[in-house]
């Protein structure tokens, strides 16, 4: 979209870049902080060392919440997918009365702010004596993940070309074979993305975890929150840096297929 007016061009680019800088600023703070030698919020750091990295990897107080978050994230992602996928199939592919209502129903958790759910669960699981258990956190996280995971799965299904299913049937595959050999494999990438969404949503979830995860099932965000308010050392910066690294890694890996395909094509051309 070429435009006349180079000055407006430059202005827009400059403004966009400034905003981009604003967005990315935390990373330039958090990463150096993780190498800081001072047990405080001092920035720029007075000195650099790896001591706090060592501390993170050797403190059970941090490692256990990390493990908890992994477990809870995975379990919640699985449960969410198990609930959402069949429902999405029904809503996208079938006609039935009340379809709109069911869709709305599944979207409801989006309308309620986390703090409200947090105290609600605190009371609810408290009565059931389930507070501070894995089960409670998994159930709660699943519930709040359902809307967004449903959106991703439904989008995946909507973009699916049903003609390939008809083709498979015309070629002799029973409905079951069609589902297993054609439908699922083609949907798999979309489902993996959806499951990843659910995992990250649970992994990063702080408010509900603050109220109901307690000490036994403490999640990483909860530990981070406590660390900010109680500790002063930059171990939290270490965790943050590692999390940023993980996010970047996931982004790169998700492009892996495209990168691998491009490399293959180049190799073939050279051959």
């Amino acid at each position: 979209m070429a435009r006349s007016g180079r000055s407006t061009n430059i202005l827009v680019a400059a403004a966009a870049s400034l905003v981009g800088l604003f967005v990315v600023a935390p990373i330039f703070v958090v990463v150096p902080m993780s190498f800081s030698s001072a047990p405080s919020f001092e920035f720029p750091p007075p000195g650099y060392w790896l001591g706090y990295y060592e501390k993170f990897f050797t403190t059970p107080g941090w490692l256990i919440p990390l493990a908890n978050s992994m477990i809870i994230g995975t379990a919640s992602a699985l449960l969410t997918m198990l609930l959402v996928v069949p429902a999405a199939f029904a809503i996208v592919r079938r006609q039935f009365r009340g379809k709109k209502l069911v869709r709305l129903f599944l979207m409801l958790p989006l309308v309620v702010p986390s703090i409200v759910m947090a105290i609600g669960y605190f009371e609810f699981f408290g009565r059931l004596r389930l507070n501070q258990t894995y089960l409670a956190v998994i159930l709660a996280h699943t519930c709040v993940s359902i809307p967004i995971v449903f959106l991703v799965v439904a989008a995946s299904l909507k973009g699916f070309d049903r003609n390939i299913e008809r083709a498979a049937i015309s070629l002799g595959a029973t409905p079951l074979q069609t589902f297993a050999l054609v439908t699922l494999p083609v949907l798999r990438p979309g489902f993996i993305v959806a499951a990843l969404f659910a995992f990250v949503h649970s992994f990063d979830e702080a408010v509900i975890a603050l109220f109901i995860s307690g000490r036994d099932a403490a999640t990483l965000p909860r530990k981070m929150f406590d660390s900010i308010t109680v500790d002063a050392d930059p171990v939290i910066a270490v965790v943050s840096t590692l999390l940023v690294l993980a996010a970047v890694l996931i982004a790169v890996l998700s492009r892996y297929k495209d990168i691998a395909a491009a490399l293959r094509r180049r190799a073939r051309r050279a051959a």
Partner: protein
Amino acid sequence: MPMSSEAYLVLGNLYKSYDGEQNAVADVSLSVAKGEFVSFLGPSGSGKTTTLMMIAGFEQPSAGSIHLNGRRLDHIASYRRNIGIVFQNYALFPHMTIRRNIGFPLRMRKAPAGEIDRRVGRALEMVGLSAYGERRPRELSGGQQQRVALARALVFEPDILLLDEPLGALDKNLREHMQVEIKRIHRELGITTIYVTHDQSEAMTLSDRLVVFNQGRIEQVGDPLAVYRRPHSVFVAEFIGDCNRLNGKVRDRASGIVELEGCGPIRIPEAAGWSHGEDVQLVLRPEFVRPGKGGKDELSFSLAVEGVVHYGDTAVVIGRWGDKQIRMRALSYDAAGIEEGSTIAARAETANLWLLPQGG
């Protein structure tokens, strides 16, 4: 073309309604011989694709029956019908290589691995894509994907081949090339084929027989040239080819005189089959109008030329006969001297004239 004249595929009074009120397909009956190439031709929504889908088993008829080789087909599940289908958007399995795509129906039939390899190889050869076996569909062009779809639909030797507007997404040159390919494959294999299209020239070039659909019903069935020359209704006359239509009344059936509104009386043998005083339409195709004075067995009239449009190889002369507009299509060579504003003599052989009831 060697083919049995026995009915191989029989559609018996097929009806299909989605809402219980309107019929998407109404009273469709057809008999297709083994090895025949039949085209379903019609505008969008005419019921041709719905009928095809009923043959394929993806739609259930509301009423009527389908028989294949004497056996009832519409009671059989779609995955047991042994029919090859080519879709407009190819519908290749994106997560499989070309070889595995083509081998899919053979794996469904539990053919031994060596057998599968052999047949897939032959199928690839047949469509000229032997070097592409290990590629994925997204790496192939549209035309190549369509050829793979064809190979996949034929590799298991189905009883019938169904094609649903397979060339719609391709550009003109590629389309013409693929038409030749499809015709060649049909000749080689002798497989009964049903081809759905809205492109009448495509249907004309490919088919042994044309079935013209309109609003869920079959308007006419026949050899392409017969349908072209002798359309049974105005719809068919206008859908296939171009035509001039002139209203008139039968004055004298014995001598074949028809009085045309605004143009005067003409002599046409066809009038003998009509009753005196009946309202008729004259159907005159532009390519049958030629410049020059008419002789015996020819209709003569004078055309006041209003415009000439040149297409390179042909030209269309637009003019008036009386107060009616007439289009004449001639080779550029023959239309060379014709100018706007002039009046020329025009003629048409009465054998090329055709009458239809008015309002039909």
